[in-house]
């Protein structure tokens, strides 16, 4: 997180991590489409000719925190291909929260596991404690055959501590929920660490509901 007291601005960095082709870029594209231009800036993609992420994708979101305070979210994706580990580690630098995008297909189980361990390793190497770092997990591509059943995922999710979301990112399903889940988890973590409420008069629940409203999910829908 970066705080600019002078400019009254808080910048939060969220990273979409996961194995190659699990749908990280698609998540950002969906958010970009679903959110109004007032909130979301241009989606920047740094990709190779074959559409694979080369360095990262970047989507800036801006929310008002009241009292002329601005809260900016910067959503990054990492390149999933194994060989780009140095880049992944760089992108993960200074991350405040991470959404791990898993591919639901059973054949991808191993790739998901490896990417998850790789994420924890790279967090550690960036001096971030992976055990206290806010992480949510998204099971993407629920529309495909050969995926784990909802029941299976729910059972496994109940054993873990990370909030789990199911999504069909190409249709925008579950994408906003994942982002909100991550934002809530991250914000509470930052609040506990930096007392944003005290310093900026930014009440956490109030802010989170502003975000929810701006993303078209009211309090009632909770």
């Amino acid at each position, binding site marked *: 997180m*970066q705080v600019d007291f002078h*400019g009254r*601005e808080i*910048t939060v*960095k969220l990273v979409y991590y996961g194995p190659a082709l699990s749908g990280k870029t698609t998540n950002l594209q969906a958010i970009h489409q679903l959110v109004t231009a007032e909130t979301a*800036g*241009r989606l*920047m993609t*740094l990709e190779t000719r074959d559409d694979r992420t*080369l*360095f*990262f994708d*970047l989507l*800036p979101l*801006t929310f008002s925190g009241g009292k002329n305070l*601005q809260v*900016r979210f*910067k959503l*990054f994706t990492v390149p999933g291909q194994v060989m*780009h*580990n*140095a*880049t992944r*580690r*760089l*992108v993960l*630098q*200074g991350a405040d929260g991470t959404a791990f995008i898993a591919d639901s297909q059973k054949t991808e189980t191993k790739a998901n596991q490896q990417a998850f361990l790789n994420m924890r390793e790279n967090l*550690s*190497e*960036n*001096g971030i404690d992976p055990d206290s770092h806010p992480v949510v997990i998204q099971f993407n591509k629920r529309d495909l055959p050969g995926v784990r059943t909802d029941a299976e995922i729910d059972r496994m999710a109940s054993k873990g501590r990370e909030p789990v979301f199911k999504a069909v990112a190409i249709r925008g399903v579950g994408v906003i929920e994942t982002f909100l889940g991550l934002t809530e988890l991250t914000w509470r973590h930052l609040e506990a660490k930096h007392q944003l409420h005290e310093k900026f008069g930014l009440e956490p629940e109030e802010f989170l509901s502003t975000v929810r409203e701006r993303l078209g999910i009211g309090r009632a829908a909770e």
Partner: protein
Amino acid sequence: MTAPSTEAAGFDIALGDIADLSEVVDREALRDICRSFFDLFNLSVRIYAADDTLLASVSEPAELYTYLQKFPKGRKVVSETVDQVKRTRPTDSSVLRHQTIMGIVYDVVPITYQGRPVGRFVIGPFVPAELEQVPKALVRLDPNLDRLEVRDLLMKLPRVRANTAERITSHLRGVLDLLLFSSHRAHLTSEMHVASVRESYRELAEKTSKLQHAYDRLKELDQLKSNFLATVSHELRTPLTSIIGYSEMLEANIAGELTGEQREFVETIHQKGNQLLGLISSLLDLSKLEQGVMRLTLSDADPKAVIGDLASTFLPHAMKREIAIETACEEGLPTLRVDPLRLKQILSNLAENAIKFSADGGTVRFAARYTDWEDDADGAGAVLMGSSRGAVAFDVVDTGIGMRASELEKIFDAFYQVDGSATREHGGTGLGLSIVKRLVEAHGGNISVTSTYGEGTTFTVTIPEPEE
């Protein structure tokens, strides 16, 4: 482990932000935009960075200002205007209109990027189209002002309608935003490129140093092993020499006449003792060679004599197995500078193998011939690097069991023997060739082998002639 570093000044990979226009956008490009804007709308435009640096400007001096500057109050008003416009800074994302008493206005437009102010541009001076007549305040500046002149000059300034001004500024904003976006992307790409390469390099360097550490440790262990071997071999030799000595004395009946069976046992003790001594000497040689402390006592050696000596030594042994020994030696070979005992050890080991791995009734040939000395130089600059030295090649050729090609590179490793069953049949420890190879190298020579499985083997030891 150290956290990855991002040293590029002013660039924050962690957030990929830009704080200032000038960080990413080429001034030349900004000037071109201002120029085309001016050509299109005939409006002066200036672009400032967040820190007030003027990045680009295309403007035409207003003739009215030139005229007004002839009068003290006029000069004051003009310079104040220019100053105030320069100091006008928008606080949010809306356009600020700077009004002057002359009726002239300027629009100060903030440039924001990803929700952040990164600079501003100023359009003007221009006159709102709605202005009907020359403002009184302007005329009253000085009693000597020529009203008509002032009016003409004011009307010469560009006149812009309010909604046109809005369209023009939003157009320029859009163009700048696009320019910023693509520049930012190019900027991030190149920064990421450099950072990724640096990060990969750091990772690699770290791994290399770990490997180097492990390698050093292994080398240390290897050294310890050699030391251990040398000590142990030495300590074993002393008592063993006594055992052999006493068994020799017993054989010589010094302690009284032995019965047939007693003699047989003592002879076995003597023979096995000698075998053990041979093994220990080999181990000692090997560890000395590995540590590079083997000393060579150099003297002159005549290749012809060497071959003759070798043949006569092995003749009795070969005759027992009905193996024929042939020798061939070219005339006029150069005298070599070698350690004669070690050279004999080399050739004896090869001869021993040749006989050991031949069937009864075979042929073993010892030969010496003159050959070119091939240096390591792989052809690059051979004309400069190669020497014109010659060498003597010693061949030990047999018609024995031979070896498969895949074995040839391994037989020079210590303790390597081609297969278990052969070991049992032929005995030995597999140290012979490893010592031979090291001894040859200690002489600055080299050893090679060619073999055909089931047909026979040729070992060639090449020793370069002494340098002039």
